[in-house]
C-alpha cells in the first residue's frame, strides 16, 4: 500500500512536469544545430509509452483528452504497482517499484493519441495479404514443430536469448522498462546507442550505397539522409528471423524512420512499414521520445543470461523427476 502510494505520488509529479512540457509550440521551436548545420538530436532519450500500437476496442477517436490520458496513466501505474504486491505470484518475478522497472519511474512523453499507429486512420494494422498469412502460418507451424520453448535455447523468443529486443528494432519500440537511448552525431554518421542489449545502431548519412541484397542482418542495413530538419532513415536487408517478424513482417520489409526534434525535450519518431508481401498497404506509427538523463550503462545481457540456462535446466529437472515417479 505504501509502495502504491509512493508510485502514485511520483507519477503525479511526473505528469505535472509533462503537462508543462507538452509539445504544442512546434512552429516556433528553433532546433539547436551542430557545426555542420544539421539539427542537434544529441543526448539521452526515452521512448516509454502507455499508448498501445493498435487502437483499443471500443475507441473510435484519434485522441483522448488530457484528463483521460492522465487518468489512464495513473491506473496503469497502480496496476504495475499492484503486480508487485508481496505474496502474489507476480511479485516473485520482478518488484517493479523497487528496481525502477515500472513505467511511472521513466520519463514519458505525454501522448494523447489512442494508438501509436497513425496510418491507417483507424489506428489498426492494415489487412494482411494472402502471402503474408501463408508466411506467418508457416512460421507458427515451424515453431510448433520445434516443440515447447523449454526444449532448447533456440525455441525461446529472441529477447530471452539476448539477441534482439523491441527497443533495438528497428523499428525501435518501448518495452516495459529500460527504454533508454543515446544519440551521438558526427559529420556523416548518426549513432543511436540502445541501452538494452548494448546495441549501437550506426546510421551513415554520407550518401553511401546500400549493401548488396545478399547481405541480410537482424537489424537490416540503414542509410540516413536529412530532409530539411528531419533525419530520414531507410532500412532494408532484414533476415527472416528478426525481431519484427513477431509483428508479422517479412525479411523484405522496407522501413522508413523519421526523427524530428519538436521541442527541447521531445524528439518525434515516426516510422513507416512498407512490406507488400505481408500487408495490403504501408502503415505508419508515431512515438514521441522524451529527453532523459544519462549515462547509458553496459547491459551485458548474454554474458549474464542465467535466466535462459535456468529455464532449460529447470525443465530437464522436471522431466527427470516425472520419469522417476512413473
Amino acid at each position: 500500500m505504501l509502495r502504491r502510494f509512493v508510485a502514485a505520488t511520483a507519477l503525479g509529479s511526473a505528469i505535472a512536469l509533462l503537462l508543462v512540457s507538452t509539445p504544442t509550440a512546434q512552429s516556433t521551436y528553433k532546433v539547436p544545430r551542430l557545426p555542420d548545420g544539421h539539427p542537434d538530436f544529441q543526448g539521452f532519450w526515452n521512448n516509454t509509452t502507455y499508448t498501445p500500437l493498435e487502437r483499443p476496442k471500443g475507441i473510435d477517436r484519434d485522441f483522448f483528452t488530457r484528463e483521460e490520458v492522465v487518468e489512464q496513466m495513473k491506473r496503469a501505474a497502480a496496476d504495475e504497482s499492484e503486480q508487485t504486491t508481496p505474496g502474489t505470484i507476480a511479485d516473485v518475478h520482478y518488484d517493479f517499484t523497487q528496481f525502477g522497472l515500472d513505467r511511472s519511474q521513466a520519463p514519458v512523453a505525454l501522448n494523447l493519441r489512442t494508438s501509436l499507429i497513425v496510418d491507417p486512420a483507424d489506428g489498426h494494422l492494415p489487412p494482411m495479404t494472402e502471402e503474408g498469412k501463408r508466411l506467418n502460418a508457416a512460421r507458427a507451424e515451424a515453431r510448433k514443430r520445434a516443440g515447447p520453448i523449454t526444449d532448447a535455447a533456440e525455441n525461446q523468443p529472441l529477447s530471452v536469448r539476448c539477441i534482439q529486443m523491441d527497443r533495438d528494432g528497428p523499428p525501435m519500440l518501448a518495452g516495459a522498462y529500460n527504454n533508454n537511448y543515446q544519440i551521438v552525431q558526427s559529420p556523416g554518421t548518426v549513432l543511436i546507442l540502445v541501452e538494452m542489449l548494448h546495441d549501437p545502431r550506426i546510421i551513415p548519412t554520407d550518401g553511401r550505397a546500400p549493401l548488396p541484397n545478399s547481405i541480410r542482418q537482424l537489424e537490416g542495413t540503414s542509410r540516413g539522409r536529412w530532409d530539411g530538419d528531419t533525419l530520414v532513415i531507410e532500412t532494408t536487408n532484414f533476415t527472416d528471423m528478426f525481431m519484427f517478424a513477431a509483428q508479422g513482417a517479412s525479411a523484405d520489409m522496407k522501413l522508413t524512420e523519421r526523427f524530428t526534434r519538436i521541442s527541447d525535450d521531445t524528439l518525434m519518431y515516426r516510422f513507416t512499414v512498407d512490406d507488400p508481401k505481408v500487408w495490403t498497404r504501408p502503415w505508419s506509427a508515431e512515438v514521441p521520445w522524451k529527453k532523459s538523463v544519462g549515462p547509458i550503462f553496459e547491459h551485458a545481457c548474454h554474458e549474464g543470461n542465467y535466466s535462459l540456462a535456468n529455464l532449460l535446466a529447470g525443465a530437464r529437472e522436471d522431466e527427470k523427476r516425472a520419469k522417476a515417479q512413473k
Partner: protein
Amino acid sequence: MQAWLGRASIAAVGVIAGLALSFTAASQTRAPQAASPQRQTSGVRTARSADGKPNLNGVYQAISEAYWDIEPHGAAAGPVQQLGASYAMAGGLGIVDGPLPYKPEALAKKKQNFANRVTLDPEIKCYLPGVPRAMYMQYPFQIIQTPTYIMMVFTYARAVRTIYMTDHKEAPADSWMGWSNGHWEGDTLVIDTTGFNDMTWFDRAGNFHSDQLHVVERITASGADHLSYEATIEDPQTFTRPWKITLPIYRRIEKNAQLLEFNCVPFVEDLIYGHLRKPSSSN
C-alpha cells in the same frame, strides 16, 4: 583527404618509422592545419574536427597476430583439431614491451588458461571482449567523435566503449568494457579506464587480469590513415609492475568501409546451452 596533403611529407615520417617508433615520430609531427569550419561534404575527411581536435572519425582495424597472443610467439596448431590450418595460430612478433611481469601464482593461472583455452576463452562464448583486447581483435571498429563523447563501436559482439571527454566520473559499477574518461594532451587522445570485471582476457593465449585492471591508452593520428596506439597496463593483483602494449591501427580505406552486424549470440547457443537441450528435440 586534401587537408592532409599539406603535411604529407611530415606525416610520412611517422608512417615509415614503423611499429616501434611511430608513436614517438607522431608526437614530434607538426599539428595538422585546422579545417575551415564549413560544412563537411560526404566522402571528404578533414584532419580536424569542428572543435579543432584531431578528427579520428572512421573505421579502423589492427593488422596484427596479437589477437592470438600479445607476446612474441611462433606459429602453432590451433586449439581445434578439426579446423586444421584454417584456425591455426599465426606467428607474431608480439605487441608488448617484454615478457609479461606475472606474479608467480598468476603465471600458473595463465598457463592453465592456455591449456584450457577452448573452454575458458571468453571470445569463444561471444562475451564482451574488454579493453585493450577489443582494440586489436581481427575485426574492424568505428570511432564516432564529438567534443563530449568519443564512441568506439566494435564489430565483435557489437561491443561499445563510451569515452567521457568532459563528464569525468569514477566507474559507477564494474563492467566488461570498463568506464573510460578521456582528455586531449595536445593531439593525443588519452583514455583512462577502470571499473573492469575480472572476466575478460588480453588474447586467445590465456593472458588475463583481475578486476584491479587499470588501462591508460594514448592514441595519436600518425598519418591520414594510421593511429599510433599505446596502452599502459596496471594490475597489482596480477603483475609485479606496469607494462605496455604498442601497435599501429589502420584505417579501413575502402570507400564503403562499414561495420557489418556480428551478433554472435546465435552462433554460440548450442555450445553454451546444448547440454540443457531436451534429449529428443532436434537441433
